[in-house]
């Protein structure tokens, strides 16, 4: 995680970046274990995108109302505030292909063309690390019109020249996913588009240099001609995130790993009990 020069965390900045990708009236999907994305969607709803509709993998529901983020009470928003609860097959076989919503995927590996891996690191049949699986990524990336990615811990383990396993389609031409445009990626170091079909650095976060981003990326990065610094979250965005949407800072968990993450999880769990 880079040092932040101003009075906000990198997860605040990432939440702000993701929120800015959401347009009013969008149908947005939240996948499994993605609190940073949830914080960002709520931020969009409370600022410029009042009429977005949430679809949730956890709640199997469509929602227009919201509640603050919670670790133990995650269903309070997704079920408690549902416009309608759906069966999962309804969502998968009917709503996703029809609505083609906007979703932010977190890849374990991503290549220059936006193909992703969430299945296994190393050889599939005897992996160095078996991952949880790709959920619906292998399905929806073959037909979503737009693809969005976020990477909370930017590094060469994630940004790779070649995937160990392709469980999500990027923008590679010729394949059935050619129409799918991975048009945006935000990491804890910068923001990117896929102009020309390849990952391209568009902004670098405050305190980060383009060179350090390249050094942490496993393939040569294209650079946008108008490369600039990522705009900081506004005071109002920070106030909303901290005071209303996610006062326990659950969104930051995605930027943590190892003992720091376990300690923080225990802290939050205890706070929620009290």
């Amino acid at each position, binding site marked *: 995680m880079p040092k932040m020069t101003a009075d906000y965390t990198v997860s605040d900045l990432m939440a702000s970046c993701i929120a800015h990708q959401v347009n009013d009236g969008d149908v947005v999907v939240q996948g499994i274990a993605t609190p940073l994305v949830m914080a960002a969607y709520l931020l969009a709803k409370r600022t410029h995108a009042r009429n977005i509709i949430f679809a949730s993998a*956890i709640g199997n529901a469509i929602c227009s109302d919201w509640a603050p983020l919670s*670790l133990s009470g995650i*269903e309070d928003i997704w*079920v408690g505030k549902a416009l309608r609860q759906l069966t999962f097959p309804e969502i998968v076989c009917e709503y996703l292909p029809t609505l083609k919503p906007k979703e932010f995927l977190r890849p374990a590996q991503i290549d220059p063309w936006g193909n992703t891996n969430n299945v296994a690191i190393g050889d599939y049949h005897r*992996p160095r690390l078996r991952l949880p699986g790709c959920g619906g990524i*292998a*399905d929806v990336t073959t*037909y979503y019109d737009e693809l969005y990615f976020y990477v909370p811990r930017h590094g060469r383990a994630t940004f790779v020249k070649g995937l160990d396993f392709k469980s999500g389609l990027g923008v590679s031409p010729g394949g059935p996913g050619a129409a799918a445009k991975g048009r945006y990626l935000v990491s804890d170091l910068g923001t990117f588009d896929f102009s020309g079909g390849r990952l391209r650095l568009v902004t670098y976060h405050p305190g980060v240099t383009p060179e350090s981003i390249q050094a942490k990326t496993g393939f040569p990065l294209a650079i946008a001609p108008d490369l600039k610094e990522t705009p900081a979250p506004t005071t109002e965005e920070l106030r909303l995130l901290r005071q209303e949407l996610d006062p326990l800072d659950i969104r930051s968990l995605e930027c943590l790993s190892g003992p720091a993450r376990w300690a923080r*999880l225990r802290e939050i769990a*205890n706070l929620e009990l009290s």
Partner: protein
Amino acid sequence: MSKIITLREATLLVRPGDILALGGMTLYRRPVAFVRELLRQRVGELTLLELTGGFESDLLVGAGLVRRVRTCYFGLETFGLAPMFTRLASSGGLEVVEETEATIAFGLRATLAGVGFMPGQGLLGTDILAVRPDIELVTCPYTRRQLVAFPALRPDVAVVHCQIADRNGNARLLGNKAIDRDIALTANRTVLTAEHIVDSPAELGGEIDLLGARVTAVVETPGGAKPTSCFPLYPLASLEILDYVLACQREDFASYLERFLGSD
């Protein structure tokens, strides 16, 4: 018609080698009490079919009762990887049938429709097809487009934990619906565990999600989803999930399991 039996009797409906479908999702409304009894009975060689595998699934895997998992996600969500699944699947000690949301959803819908497959979008161009040689393609006779022919899926036994059921197995699911209706309708035998059982459907307080006509047995298990959640009755016991993960990190699965089987 009362279908109420004991938890012990209900686990006898699961036979070694069965395809066992568990209701709920990851850490939400899982049939934990049922799985605890199954662990005591040590019914093994199971194929675990789930939308997403989570806490109690990892216990079954860690205890060596699972030969094969069929799920599109197996983990503990914000609490990280599922430790025993990750260990056994990485070491080759567990067969993983690589599923996606669509292979599960369309697979169950094929069985519901009484046909061998359902066509859908997905998978083409990914490596999933390479590790699922059992999945065939089909050409749409109208558009000539190549589609995946998602093969029909049918559980031997489905086990679903619900908030409220009647004696005949009509039941409501108040949290997420997951694939519970679909596994309950397609399974050869369906067991409901319920926080609360009432006499008649009129006392259920709302529309049913599960139809008694397809339910084999009903078991009253208050708190039967703990430490997973049972919305709105109790939330996820986050600390318990953390304790499990940390026990496994200390290579202490066996003693965690012993404690778990001792509790009720």
